[in-house]
């Protein structure tokens, strides 16, 4: 029921804690609130009244948030201090998964580009006008950082899209009415998992190749590049399958919490 979920999200969202802890709070509070609602509904027979009564019995969102925040250790609170732009990290209401992935990728790209540019500047300034034989040239340094930004961007974009594919297939597998539908969804999960693992392995190996190309010392060959990629697929597929068992129960359960609009709702009586 949306009003109950909104109330839970009003309590949990402001808390500074890791996402695992917050998801646990969400689920447990929602379970209690749902029971309260069921009890009130059985008593009053009216859904709106039952909701209002359940929310009243449950408590005010702001004070519950404060109490729950007090149950989180100071280390975790500190680690989850909101930083500049933290509001932008959350998936917006109505935003598509692909749109969200692209937006996040653009943020990571912008931050990385700034970071690498700064690093490159420091390297070039530190080196000064002199260049020893064992040091990379300016163009090699430029290629190194540009290459890393590109590989990182492609890797994150691909990973986001493949993970979204896995998430959707998990939903289809749960919703499938027959064994054939479940089997097809499972194979697609394996496919996305293999593609994702291959991409990660290739991104890692490509990063090494770029570093190799800009370094006077050679430490990776093209054959090793393919072995790393293949190794990632071999390790990645069973890992994806194993993880998808957890995603099945947890990802679907929590996927919509962050995008739930907790402001744009008629004020709830008693909340």
């Amino acid at each position, binding site marked *: 029921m949306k009003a109950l979920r909104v109330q839970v999200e009003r*309590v949990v969202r402001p808390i500074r804690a890791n996402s695992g802890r917050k998801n*646990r*709070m969400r*689920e*447990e*509070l*929602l*379970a*209690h609130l*749902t*029971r*309260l609602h069921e009890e009130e509904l059985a008593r009053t027979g009216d859904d709106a009244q039952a909701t209002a009564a359940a929310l009243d*019995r*449950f*408590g*005010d969102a702001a*004070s*519950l948030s404060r*109490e*729950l925040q*007090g*149950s*989180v*250790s100071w280390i975790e609170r500190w680690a989850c201090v909101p930083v500049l732009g933290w509001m932008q990290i959350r998936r917006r209401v109505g935003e598509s998964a692909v749109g969200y992935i692209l937006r996040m990728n653009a943020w990571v790209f912008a931050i990385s580009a700034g970071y690498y540019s700064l690093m490159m500047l420091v390297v070039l300034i530190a080196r000064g006008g002199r260049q020893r034989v064992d040091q990379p040239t300016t163009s090699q340094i430029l290629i190194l950082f540009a290459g890393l930004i590109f590989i990182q961007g492609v890797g994150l974009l691909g990973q986001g899209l493949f993970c979204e594919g896995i998430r959707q297939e998990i939903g289809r597998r*749960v919703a499938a009415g027959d064994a054939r539908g479940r089997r097809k969804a499972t194979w697609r999960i394996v496919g996305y998992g293999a593609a994702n693992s291959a991409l990660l392995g290739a991104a890692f190996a490509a990063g090494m190749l770029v570093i190799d190309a800009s370094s006077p010392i050679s430490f990776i060959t093209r054959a090793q590049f393919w072995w790393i990629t293949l190794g990632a697929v071999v390790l990645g597929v069973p890992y994806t399958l194993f993880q998808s068992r957890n995603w099945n*129960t947890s990802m*679907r*359960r929590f996927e919509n919490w962050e995008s739930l609009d907790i402001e744009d709702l008629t004020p709830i009586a008693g909340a």
Partner: protein
Amino acid sequence: MTAISGDQLRGHLEGLILAALERGTAHGWDIWRNLEAASGGALALKEGSLYPALYRLESQGLIAARWEAATTARPGPRRRVYRLTAKGRRRLETARGEWRQFVAVLGNLLGAPA
């Protein structure tokens, strides 16, 4: 019966939870119902307040919790089952001793010995 407010209960809720769990494992919902029944409905607390106390107790190692196994394929909120740990049991005994002493001292001071 006069209602006991949240302010009056401050500092005692955790001990009450430990006492409720002494009888066996329970979900948050059941813990609350046990406390409510034992108090004869005198606890005037919002039910959500139970969870911060449960999380504090768990982080101190006084209680332990596990997710209840799902009984249906429908994705819905699961519940956590709490149990008292050995450390929690010792803390409960300490809390009981402190409470007896508190009641005895205040009872004497107020001229109403326990």
